[in-house]
């Protein structure tokens, strides 16, 4: 009788709280993984320094604004892209060691696992973007449109990160392994160079310009540029949101099924 009285009543965990707990656990473990820290923050910082040092003058002279704004936006997204590959590797590791299966048995709402993961990706990108902005300021980066717009620019990178993380999680869990993640590496490399932040869109061959202009990175970079240096915001922001929503609609169900499969496999 005393046992029954001291045993707390079972009650449902709200999905939001479950997501936040999941996200903070992931962020803590990611912060201890040198591979993830390097790919999310350290590598982008060096990439920004090198792009500015080597190509900064050349790209600025091509027209289309000071290259530091385009490069900072670009590199913030690069951190999101390559960081999410590193977290996908750790997701595969969690699956192989059975951690996902253990978590799956907890009496919590299961969508929370995926929501928490995406939340963690967004926060990871937000932190990395703030670090990058701090590094970019001595190189000539300024919040010309005010601090509020600057915070908006960080949020844009976070929205982009969520959109990109969904297909990567789908890939990592459905296609059973590192191989698929490494192939994404090559694809992301193309995105890195063929966008409006690396060089003005007009520098690319004519038949390629529509691809360069509307691939997911260019609108996000343009939004970051608009919110910091100045320029149009509404249209690129709308395209960025459209990309994120579209990627979630298309790959969300695949990612959810893949995650379930990964957690239930053993």
């Amino acid at each position, binding site marked *: 009788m005393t046992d029954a009285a001291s045993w707390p009543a079972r009650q449902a965990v709200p999905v939001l709280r479950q997501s936040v707990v999941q996200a903070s656990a992931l962020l803590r473990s990611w912060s201890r993984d040198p591979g993830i820290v*390097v790919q999310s923050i350290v590598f982008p910082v060096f990439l920004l320094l*090198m792009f500015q040092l080597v190509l900064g003058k050349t790209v600025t002279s091509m027209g289309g604004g000071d290259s530091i704004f385009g490069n900072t936006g670009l590199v913030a997204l690069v951190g999101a892209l390559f960081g999410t590959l590193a977290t996908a590797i750790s997701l595969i590791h969690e699956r192989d060691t059975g951690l996902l299966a253990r978590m799956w048995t907890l009496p919590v709402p299961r969508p929370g696992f995926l929501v928490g993961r995406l939340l963690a990706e967004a926060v990871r990108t937000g932190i990395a973007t703030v670090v990058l902005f701090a590094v970019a300021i001595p190189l000539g980066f300024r919040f010309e449109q005010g601090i509020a717009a600057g915070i908006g620019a960080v949020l844009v990178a976070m929205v982009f990160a969520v959109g990109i993380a969904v297909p990567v999680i789908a890939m990592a869990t459905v296609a059973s392994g590192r191989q698929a993640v490494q192939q994404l590496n*090559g694809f992301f490399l193309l995105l890195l160079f063929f966008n409006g932040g690396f*060089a003005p869109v007009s520098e690319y061959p004519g038949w390629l310009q529509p691809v360069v202009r509307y691939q997911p990175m260019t609108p996000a970079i343009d939004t970051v540029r608009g919110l910091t240096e100045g320029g149009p915001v509404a249209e690129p922001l709308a395209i960025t949101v459209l990309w994120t929503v579209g990627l979630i609609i298309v790959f969300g169900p695949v990612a959810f099924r893949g995650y379930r499969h990964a957690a239930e496999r053993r």
Partner: protein
Amino acid sequence: MTTAVGHAPTSSSPSTTMPRSSVGLVPATATLARQKISAAIRSGDVVFAVFGPVVFFLCFYTPLHRQFELGGGNYAQFLTPIILLQAGLFTAITATESAGQDARAGVHERMMSLPIPRVAPFFGRMAWVVVRMGLTLGGGLAIGCALGFRLQGTIVESLVFVALVIVFGLALSMVTDAIGTVARNSVSIASVLMIPQLILVMASTGLVTAPAFPAWIQPFVRNQPMSVYADALRALAAGTDLEFTAVVLWSVALLAIGGAAMVIAGRAQVKR
């Protein structure tokens, strides 16, 4: 029982089995090299070796060639050497991962229990490095030539061009192979090695000429090994004269460091 033991040597079985003898260096290395190559085919590393330089070439060439060619000159001719050298760096980074996988999976312990020369596994891995450099040279030269790169020097100069790229990749891979063998968490090391790779490739005279850099960093840019190699390769491709002392010194130094690293890693392996 004593009779059984006594009979054993006279029974027919010892005469049919070969006496134990150690395997020579060449057959052992050939077998291990073949095993490495088939593993690379299975893992898809072969595809990356060929198409890696192609992708990087297009990534730099497409947005930058117009601006470069405004000042005269052929950007494909200018860019190809650094793309091949970068492919050498990637080969070295892959070597770290591969050596680390072997170290973690206990492959080295198994190898040491076999009657093969102790250096055979190392030579086997390096044989794959040379093959990979050959593949990567093929990919890089194919895309370069398609967009206007030409080896205009003599046959000898062209052969030295190819040899220099292979020596560069091989010497660096000797160092990174040793690092991967000794350090266990080679996946993290490989992602950390991407940073020196980035600095060496970008802050060199491979992508833009030295005057495009700020004055304070120019001494580094001009003299770092990637620039030295890129300048030498460019001269060999164009068939012009160049002072080759620097590149020869760098090659000898890199090979010496690689050899030393290999010996140190080999000793650490035996002690463990």
